[in-house]
């Protein structure tokens, strides 16, 4: 069929079989449906310009253009469906791929992204993001956590404690995300739980982005005195974003329990062959 979907008893994720990209998430338990387009983009890192000599670097995020470029507008996909997992393998490029998966009984979509080594042969430093675009009317507001506990409301080009003269429309709206970032239209909430601290923002209504990897060619003149540029071919980074679509009323319970399980994840230890009885004495 033209429409490709993975589902379990709670969630259905639908993909555009032409582009291979995610195009809708449904919460069947709460009969919620949200068109969500997710893809990877990269900001061209600034090395200084007419306005300011400030380059993007280890301390500084400063893209040279407001709009990021898509890693690819489509993905090569492979579908796996078994009793214990349904997943779509997406390959955007040689250095960017993702697995979107659903396990039985799970109320969130798991996006396992693999990014790197970031190519810099074009002499452009790249700051790679995963971006979720939806039609939600979020009125320039979004929410990020502070060290996994307090949730802070963020407003585009605005600071709560002083009159902001916004000189960096992108970087000036990026905030630290330790465990989660979300957007809401008052009825539905789209939450993305991270497995590590990242920078994140919502630069236009209904959109939500998280920075997953960077590879830069200039130093930002803040003391490190070397660019954020891994030696050799560069590093490959793999991580997970857990995506929750829920009603606003029970979103907090969902993401708080999910984050606890993510931060205090079960640990696996293996042992080969047989074991022998053991008594401390």
């Amino acid at each position, binding site marked *: 069929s033209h429409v490709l979907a993975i589902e379990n008893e709670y969630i259905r994720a639908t993909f555009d079989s032409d582009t291979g990209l995610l195009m809708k998430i449904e919460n069947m338990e709460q009969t919620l449906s949200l068109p969500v387009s997710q893809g990877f983009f990269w900001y061209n890192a600034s090395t200084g310009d007419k306005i300011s000599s400030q380059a993007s670097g*280890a301390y500084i995020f400063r893209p040279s253009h407001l709009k990021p470029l898509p890693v690819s507008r489509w993905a090569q996909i492979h579908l796996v469906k078994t009793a214990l997992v349904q997943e779509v393998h997406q390959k955007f490029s040689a250095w960017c791929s993702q697995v979107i998966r659903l396990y039985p009984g799970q109320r969130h979509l798991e996006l396992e992204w693999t990014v790197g080594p970031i190519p810099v042969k074009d002499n452009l430093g790249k700051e790679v993001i995963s971006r979720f675009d939806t039609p939600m009317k979020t009125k320039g507001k979004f929410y990020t956590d502070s060290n996994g506990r307090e949730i802070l409301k963020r407003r585009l080009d605005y600071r709560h404690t002083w009159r902001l003269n916004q000189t960096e429309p992108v970087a000036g709206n990026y905030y630290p995300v330790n465990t989660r970032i979300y957007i809401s239209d008052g009825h539905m909430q789209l939450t993305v739980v991270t497995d590590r601290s990242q920078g994140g923002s919502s630069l236009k209504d209904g959109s939500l982005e998280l920075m997953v990897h960077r590879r830069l060619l200039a130093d930002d003149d803040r003391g490190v005195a070397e660019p954020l540029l891994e030696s050799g071919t560069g590093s490959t980074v793999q991580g997970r974003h857990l995506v929750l679509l829920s009603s606003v009323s029970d979103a907090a319970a969902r993401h708080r329990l999910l984050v606890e399980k993510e931060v205090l994840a079960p640990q696996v230890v293996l042992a080969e062959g047989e074991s022998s009885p053991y008594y401390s004495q």
Partner: protein
Amino acid sequence: SGDSAPLNEAMAVLQHHDAVSGTARQNVVNDYARQLAAGWEPCEVLVSNALAQLSRQKQNFSFCRELNISICPVSQKSQHFQVTVYNPLGRKVQHMVRLPVSEGLFFVKDPNGKTVPSNVVLRPSSYSKRYQWDLLFSASVPALGFSIYSVAKVTAPNPQSYSLLTRSKKSR
């Protein structure tokens, strides 16, 4: 005997803002990684001793440090191994265990010796290289506790009987 002090020390050093925010020079980052890795070893002995005491079973424990990139010699090469899943949360969790394996049929038994459903699925990154597989099974782990699952690989004597095995299973 194990020791968690070296890892404590390494984590104390890594409270520096350079370590927390990644604003260190490459050689400093490499040294942070070295200190962490050096701290793991004595900690793994400590955890092994703790698990042996708690489970009253002495096992040849193996910590697959590269499980996140699907590398784990024990699950990829052994015919029979135990999987201990520890849950640090104060509530029971259901956790999907995913281990890299070589191709084949596996039986997974829970702590009560009951066979639990398991799947072997193709891993995405293996399209270009020779096929690689993940074994999946769902583990139920008590609050602040652990569960030990045993995995046995069914070595079909030859592909023919392997397919017969699956067919007969289906017919049965």
